[in-house]
Structures are given as C-alpha cells and as structure tokens.
C-alpha cells in the first residue's frame, strides 16, 4: 500500500528517461531558447559586473557609497521583482536579461573587488619603487592578480545564469525550459518536470565546464604560486 505511489506524484526514473528520449522534439526548442537566454544574460551580467567592479576599484570613495547598495540589490527576492519587471518592460527579452544580469553581476563584483584588494603588497611596493604609473599598476599587476578571483566569480555566475533564465521564463514567455516546466507542472506531468530539472543541471554543468576550461588556458603556469 505504502509503496503504491501514483506515477503523477513521483514518476519512476525509467519513466523520466522515456520522456526525456521520446519527448525530445517537444522540448528541444525550449532548451535552445533557455541556453541562448542564459548565455546572453551571462555575458551582459558579467560585463556589467566587471565594469562596475573596475570603476569602484578605481574610485574608492564611490566604492564606499555604492557597495551597500549592491548588497541591497541582492536582498530583493527575484520572485517579487520579476513580475514588476514584466509590468514595466513587457514580456519581451529585456526584463529577462535584467533578471539574469541582476543575479550574475553580484558574484562577479564581490570576487573581482576582493581580488583587487588582495593584491600582494610586496609586488605593489616593487612596482611603485620601479616608477610604475597608475595604469601600469592596474594592467600589469592588479588585473592579472585578480584573475583567479574573477574566475571564481565567473563560475558562480555561470550556474546562476541558468537559474536566472529559468526563473525569468516562469513569469511570462512563450518558450524556454521555464515555460515547459510550468506547463508540465500545471498538467501534473511530473515526469516532464523532472526532465526539465535534469536538463537545467546539465546546462549548468556545461557552463561550468566551459569556464573551467577557459580558466585552465588563461591561468596557465600559475599552479603552486601561493605556497
């Protein structure tokens, strides 16, 4: 009795697998749309994050004023903000990009600013003594020094971007995994909900792997530098 759980409540893994294979045609375009949205949102979010952190770093007084606001921006629940954005900007792509940007830029800003702040004082001292200008200090020391931190931020942002994309689709879109998920949910197609979950995870992992690959290339030769 106890184990007789109906399929709509908790589908068997085999059912989920079947749906994933057989239903490919019905959700492939959703998948594509979500990955597109996540990539675009990620790129914009990261760019905004980098621009914000670099400007805050170069203008320490502004940094003190703005940093608390950045933290506050992360306290507004996305679930509440998203419908508002839809009201203001409609069902187009803009409110979705705003949501993804909002979740992506914060980890980038925190990681990048920390990276700048932890610049080795010894190397800084050497550069100053050698007569380096402010822009040389920035290009030759601070940026390369912050790169590992920036990559930590990128990894977090990459996984957030997929989440952000799905959430933004929940609230009004005509395609995307978020839409597929909502439809599945309201028609009690639990198997499809699980298919969606699995694909969200796969998407996150792919993004993550790309960032790690990029990190390997760009931080070549840095292993063991900190002992």
């Amino acid at each position, binding site marked *: 009795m106890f184990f007789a759980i109906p399929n709509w409540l908790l589908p068997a893994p085999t059912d989920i697998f079947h749906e994933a294979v057989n239903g490919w045609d019905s959700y492939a375009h959703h998948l594509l749309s979500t990955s597109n949205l996540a990539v675009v949102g990620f790129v914009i979010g990261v760019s905004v994050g980098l621009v914000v952190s670099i400007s805050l770093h170069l203008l320490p007084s502004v940094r003190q004023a703005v940093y608390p606001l950045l933290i506050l921006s992360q306290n507004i629940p996305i679930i509440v903000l998203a419908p508002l954005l839809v009201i203001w900007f409609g069902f187009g792509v803009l409110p979705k990009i705003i949501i993804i940007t909002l979740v992506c830029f914060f980890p980038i800003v925190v990681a990048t600013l920390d990276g700048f702040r932890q610049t*080795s004082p*010894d*190397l800084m*001292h*050497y*550069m*100053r*003594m*050698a*007569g*380096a200008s402010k822009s*040389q200090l920035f290009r*030759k*020391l601070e940026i*390369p*020094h912050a*790169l590992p931190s920036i990559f930590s931020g990128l990894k977090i942002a990459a996984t957030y971007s997929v989440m952000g994309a799905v959430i933004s689709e929940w609230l009004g879109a005509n395609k995307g995994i978020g839409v597929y998920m909502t439809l599945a949910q309201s028609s009690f197609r639990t198997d499809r909900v699980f298919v969606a979950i699995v694909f969200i995870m796969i998407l996150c992992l792919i993004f993550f792997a790309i960032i790690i690959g990029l990190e390997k290339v760009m*931080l070549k*030769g*840095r*292993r*063991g*530098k*900190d*002992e």
Partner: protein
Amino acid sequence: MSELIAESITKSFADKQILQNVSFTVKEGEFVALLGPSGSGKSTIFHLIGGMSRPDEGTFSLDGKDITGQRGMISYTPQNPSLFPWRTIIQNVVLGAEIQKKPDYQTAQEMLEKAGLKGYENAYPYQLSGGMQQRVAFVRALLSPQDFICLDEPFSALDEFTRLEMQQWLLNIWQENKKSILFVTHNIEEALYLADRLLILSNNPATIKYDFSLPFVRPRDENLFLTEEFLQWKRKIYQALQENNHIPS
C-alpha cells in the same frame, strides 16, 4: 654614470623620529653597505630614496639632479624576490625595463645565461629555488634602465650555503657591470665581504655613525673570511655596533 648624494635626511612617523640628519654619498661604481640593527630605519632610507614618501628635511640627488620624492629613479631589489607568479622568468626580468621603455629580450637572454639561469627562461617563479629566485630579482634590477641599484637585505631569507654562493655570484656580476650599489644588511660578515665602504647606522633615531673604507683587495673570494685582517675588522665593526645598542635610560 651615477652618484647618489643623500644630504641631511630627516624623517619622522607620527611622533617618532626615525632618521636624523642622515648624509652619505655613493660614488660612481661603488659598492656601499649600510649596516644597522633591525628597526634602525634602514628600509625607511630605501623608501625615501625610491620616492615612496618624502623626507621631512634634506634632499637626495643622483648625478647632480634632485630626485627627492621621485619614483622610478633607482632600480631596486626587495627583501623577498617579489617575482610576478604569472610571468615566466624572462618576462619577470624585463619588467623593470618594461615600465620605463621597450624591453630588450636579447640582452635579457644573455644576462640570464650569465646568471646561470639558462634553460629557465620559460619557467615560472614557483619552479625555482629561493636562491635562483633571488638571482632573477637581481637580474631584473640589472636590466632596469637605472644605473643605481638598491638592495634591501636580498639574502636574508636564504640558508647559509646558498647565501655564500649568492654573495660570490653578486660580486662577480657586479664587477662586470660596475653599477653603483647601496646594499642594506644586518649581517656584519656580509657587509665586510661585499662592500667598498661600510656605513653604520645608530639607533633611535638613526644617523650615520661611522663611515669605514674597507681595504680588502678585489676580486675577493671566500678565503677572505679567515684572514686576520678580516677578523680584526669584524671585531671593530662589532664594537661599533655595540656602542649603539646601549639601552637609553
């Protein structure tokens, strides 16, 4: 071509006076050691020469030109090698030159070979031993366009054997290049072994207490350590430092 003159340098931090009326000259091609106990303001002198901050009073001039408070006029090797971990060895040694103008990789390559670092051009700093890293840092100072080199206890982090080896190496490479060197240390033997002239700093606030010209002929080697003359000098310097160290009542 470089002669550094420090003229009555005075510097205080907060209410504490660190340097009082410090004057000295480093002549062209001369190797001068600055000896003093820890905390006597040796590093402060370097910061001032390097233009990290300005002295309260006094001036520095290099070849007759006032360089007080100006950065980038001297080349400098800090206590720890301060190599950039993301740069290869060859990229590291050209850094000092790169800040001022276009780096010359050809000369850098030759200099690395002379320093016994052939084959390590494309290695990263973490792959090198402490002594080798220090050599890289010194090659970087030599390749910098400035003719005046300041060395801030460059061998203090090395073990005794490596240090001896490095001192000999430094002497050889300096004899070839003949740049003027100001060398800060708290090691009496090191100062005697390397320098033409020895300046002794007093404590609290620091001022130049003695200015000894050392009579040892060049080229020098490790046998010098055991000569009677060397030991006499060592005693003399030791006593001079002792006078310093009385605790003020």
